[in-house]
């Protein structure tokens, strides 16, 4: 694979695409969100179980490209068990990372762990919305909005 392409499609992303974490329904969810990327046909549904200001459990379902699926998979792993405030911080950092809005500090990148593999996305403006679809859907699900999120 070409080096530039490898930068975007890191092995971790391909792995999560193939075997996503937390994929499937969540019978006792109490917040759900629907996210769409109409241009690509991506569609994700997020199921959350919020308890005492914490994301006690989270799963996702749907169709999407490797970037959006891996992002959803890794997001669920990153926010599960976190407080809403902590999840918000991770969201902001992830957003800054993929949009290239600002350089993250070494510490922040360390704290993001595997999510840092999405840094390559900001060179591909068309793919930023793929990487961020799950995250915007998470925000909407937490806010309890029943309006579907779209990236357009």
């Amino acid at each position, binding site marked *: 694979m*070409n080096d*530039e392409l490898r930068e975007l499609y890191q092995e971790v992303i391909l792995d999560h695409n193939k075997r996503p974490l937390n994929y499937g329904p969540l019978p006792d969810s109490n917040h759900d969100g629907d996210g769409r990327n109409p241009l690509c046909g991506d569609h994700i549904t997020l199921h959350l179980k919020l308890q005492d200001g914490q994301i006690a459990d989270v799963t996702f379902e749907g*169709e999407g490209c490797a*970037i959006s699926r891996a992002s959803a998979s890794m997001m669920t792993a990153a926010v599960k068990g976190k407080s809403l405030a902590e999840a918000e911080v991770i969201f902001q950092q992830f957003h800054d990372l993929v949009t290239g809005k600002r350089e993250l500090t070494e510490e922040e990148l360390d704290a993001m762990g595997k999510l840092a593999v999405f840094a390559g996305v900001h060179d591909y403006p068309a793919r930023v919305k793929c990487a961020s679809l799950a995250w915007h859907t998470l925000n909407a699900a937490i806010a309890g909005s029943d309006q579907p999120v779209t990236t357009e």
Partner: protein
Amino acid sequence: MTVSTPAKYDVEAVRAKFPILGVTVHNKPLVYLDNANTTQKPESVIEAISNFYRTTNSNIHRASHLLGEQATNQYEAARKRVQRFLNAREWEEIVFVRNATEGVNLIANTYGRQYIREGDEIILTEMEHHANIVPWQLLCERTGAVIKVLPVTDDGELDLTNLYNYFTPRTKLLGIVHMSNVLGTVNPVEQIIATAHEHGVPVLVDAAQSAYHMPIDVQAMDCDFLVFSGHKLYGPTGIGVLYTRRALLEEMEPWQGGGDMIESVSFARTIYNQVPYKFEAGTPHIAGAIGLGAAVDFIQTLGMENLRAYENELLQHGLAVLTNVKGLRLIGSASNRASVLSFTLDGVHPHDIGTFLDFDGIAIRTGQHCAHPLMQRLKVPATARASLGCYNTSQELDALAESLTKIRETFVS
């Protein structure tokens, strides 16, 4: 004396006419398989536009000088080229618009507003591009008319079993795509038009995808309206054609008002210009129309029948090599189809296919192709689509298949 044999299609000679085919993408030679989206432009079209601006540029129909006269002549000559291309009876039946989409909107806003009322019915098909859906929905919102939808079979053909039942005394128009941009299905428009006419219903044909792949004869087809875009026919963007049967065009009220579409204007009374000028308000895309004229010349020099035969060979080759790609599923299997290969690849989302192919220099389109109802009907969230043009080769399709095999290995292994 030598006996002439049918000219063999010389694809290398055709390719040599397209400057862009010499560019590289990600350091790979360009393999352009996104023709259903827009086609590349031959030297003659680029030259026609450039020459117009270099030597003739003036406004048309109103200048009192030589260049203005020449510009008018070239613009009107382009209209007559389009007339002959479509085999329309009269040049007055050819209205220049921005694109096929604007053509449909024009009909919805003139014919539609004049004749379609609350409770009236418009028949469309499940295979339509959004361009032939949304203008009618807007009209229905305004008037209270309703849309009835002819269904599509699992093979991606129109299901015409109950066609007769779709017509009622309230049916005012039938809109149909000649060739599907998603599946390449070519619809039996002549048969459908004949049935519609038995019920006294006029028919609009969206020929955006067919006009650059097969001969179009509006008289043989007997359509009432037909639209296509210049940019898919190897011509420039921003110019398209609306053909309308003369009697209907005469009846239709103007859509946009302004200069050139009038005979005389006073605040008491404005008299409109004759057709087709009544529908061409304001300074049109003069260079675009001239470029489209050159594109029509280009495609007619290739010969529509030659081109159709060549592209069909390519399509059959493409179907064969793609079928051999592990995990690949072709979408649509209509018996009459042209120049479009829509597919999915097990374990790889179309968007990823598009990005990976791009790095091999191969340009395709991925997604829903502005045809959400059809995608829902086929139950595929997105497809990858390779679409053929006059300059593609079987080697390029081999390269596509090879690249797809590699991509699948990357994602699935």
